[in-house]
């Protein structure tokens, strides 16, 4: 069996389009949960706001692509306000309950049959991504080589000798835009969390009454974190929709939100690059396990009596779950989190 191929594939995925979606979703959560302590369990719905905002604008309303982006962002802001206004003055758990319910409502609305002529119901929507791919600045037949990076007929290849990463014409564009967004947003986050504004957020996470007693309008700070984190969630939604060139309501389940949490905890919460590292590791492990097991079965290394192809998916999730449990026991701070911060009782 071809380990080199399996490894190359997993590595390709580890910095690829899907990983970027996870990274962005988790960066938004990091601001809300990691820094401010807000339990947003509806990040999938913020992503859906972005994805559907874009798709509906372009496909159903015939608006230009950039209007779709603006509408997607605006939808995320409106949702953050609607969820935040009634709950952010209450205890933390209220936001958790309301966001989880709202996410489910959004998903059901998206798949409802009443307006499926417009939204596509449970089939979802397609045909909104062309304007995005028309923006690709290089031609389909462009070919060049620079050190170990090369472009061959519009496709990107990174050759490390023992393994090679390859991306399609469109995926390459998704990655250029995605990585630019991730780095830009991480830069903004780094500035924000090291500013007095970020200090107030951390204070709120620790004890919001104390922060209130110091004359800070805690509600306003929480709202800003919820809105900005939601906007980043919507950006994740754009990238998700564009990278697949279609959207389906049932991809925006609570599971999606929980993957963002897994990514955040794996990488290390309250660290600017935690979500990025977490997303890379999570998606690498997922791919190397599923592809490795698949390859092993195909090559008869694992006989069908032990494991069948159809069982690989569930087994991978089981292993990842187990890995998560072990992580929480032995390295609760994640890859780059601060262990010391976890040692204090936070009541």
């Amino acid at each position, binding site marked *: 069996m071809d380990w080199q191929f399996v490894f190359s594939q997993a590595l390709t995925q580890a910095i690829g389009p899907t990983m970027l979606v996870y990274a962005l979703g988790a960066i938004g959560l990091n601001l809300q949960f990691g820094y401010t302590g807000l339990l947003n369990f509806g990040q999938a719905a913020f992503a859906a706001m972005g994805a559907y905002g874009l798709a509906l604008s372009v496909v159903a309303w015939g608006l230009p692509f950039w209007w779709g982006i603006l509408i997607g962002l605006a939808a995320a802001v409106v949702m953050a306000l609607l969820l935040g206004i009634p709950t952010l003055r209450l205890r933390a758990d209220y936001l958790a309950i309301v966001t989880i319910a709202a996410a489910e409502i959004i998903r059901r609305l998206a798949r409802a049959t009443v307006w499926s002529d417009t939204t596509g119901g449970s089939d979802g929507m397609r045909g909104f991504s062309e304007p995005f791919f028309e923006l690709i600045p290089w031609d389909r037949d462009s070919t060049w080589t620079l050190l170990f990076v090369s472009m061959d007929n519009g496709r990107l290849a990174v050759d490390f000798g023992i393994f090679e990463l390859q991306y399609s014409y469109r995926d390459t564009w998704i990655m250029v835009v995605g990585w630019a967004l991730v780095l830009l947003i991480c830069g*903004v986050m780094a*500035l*924000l969390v090291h*500013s*007095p*504004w*970020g*200090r*107030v957020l*951390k*204070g709120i*996470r*620790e*004890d919001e*009454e*104390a*922060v*209130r*007693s*110091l*004359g*800070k*309008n*805690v509600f306003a700070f929480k709202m*800003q974190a919820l809105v*900005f984190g939601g906007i980043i969630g919507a950006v994740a939604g754009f990238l998700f929709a564009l990278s697949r060139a279609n959207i389906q309501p049932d991809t925006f389940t609570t599971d999606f939100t929980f993957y963002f949490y897994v990514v955040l905890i794996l990488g290390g919460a309250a660290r600017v690059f935690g979500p990025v590292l977490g997303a890379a590791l999570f998606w690498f492990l997922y791919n190397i396990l599923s592809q490795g097991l698949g390859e092993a079965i195909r090559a008869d290394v694992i006989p069908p009596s032990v494991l069948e192809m159809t069982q690989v998916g569930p087994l991978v999730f089981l292993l990842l779950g187990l890995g998560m449990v072990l992580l929480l026991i032995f390295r609760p701070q994640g890859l780059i989190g601060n262990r*010391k*911060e976890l*040692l*204090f*009782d*936070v009541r």
Partner: protein
Amino acid sequence: MSDKEKAGKAAAGAALAGVPAEPGAPKADAILSATGVRRAFGGLVAVDVEHVEIQRGTITALIGPNGAGKTTFFNLLTGFDRPSRGSWDFDGRRADRMRSFQVARAGMVRTFQLTKALTRMSVLDNMLIGAADQVGERMWAGLVPRLWRGQEAANRERALVLLERFKLIDKREHYAGELSGGQRKLLEMARALMLEPKMIMLDEPMAGVNPALKQSLLEHIKDLREDGMTVLFVEHDMDMVHEIADWVAVMAAGQLITEGTPDQISADQRVIDAYLGAHHDAAQH
């Protein structure tokens, strides 16, 4: 006793001279004036204060047995709890409708009986978060360090001076979660001072602080008065109250039963009854 302290004590004494030792006695220049404040938890009336005034520039002690309603009264005054009824003015402004953060901005800053250190932040960050009117606390300004660096540096200076005063300077880079209980009390008080309040309300600031440090804390509190601040503090230790308070208000079973100078209070039979439970029993009807 330093000259400054003598002067401060004399000024406070003069301001309170002639104020009768009875609950709700009017003051010459009250920074805080509350009327008809009542808070009930179900059937239990935790606070029911008819009238109270706090003289500006003095140290007033609020004493009373456990469960008298002192903390609840603090919570009401500072907007952390809502009264069933009642109204109060702070520094000439109606304050009973203010939210807690607005109360703090108006200049009335409180500490908590159960300390609220921001545990996963450094001691210095705990201090810096206290500073008022920070430009960099606006989200967009936070993105442009140039806009707030200067102010931050000035706040840091002030924070270090306070930490020095409160013997926490060596701990400035430590997490607040690493501090002992007494140190957290000190940090909380120092942090409140970062706001430069007009009135500071301390809920048992000395609890758990060692005697030597307690003495220096007392000096700090007197200094606050000498700097023109008004201090209202809850304390169970009568020796402490005697040593620094210019005026004492006594609560029992939610009511203000009496007020007066420390000497008048120690001689008051109602206070002794309250502490021994006679009043409490009577109030249970």
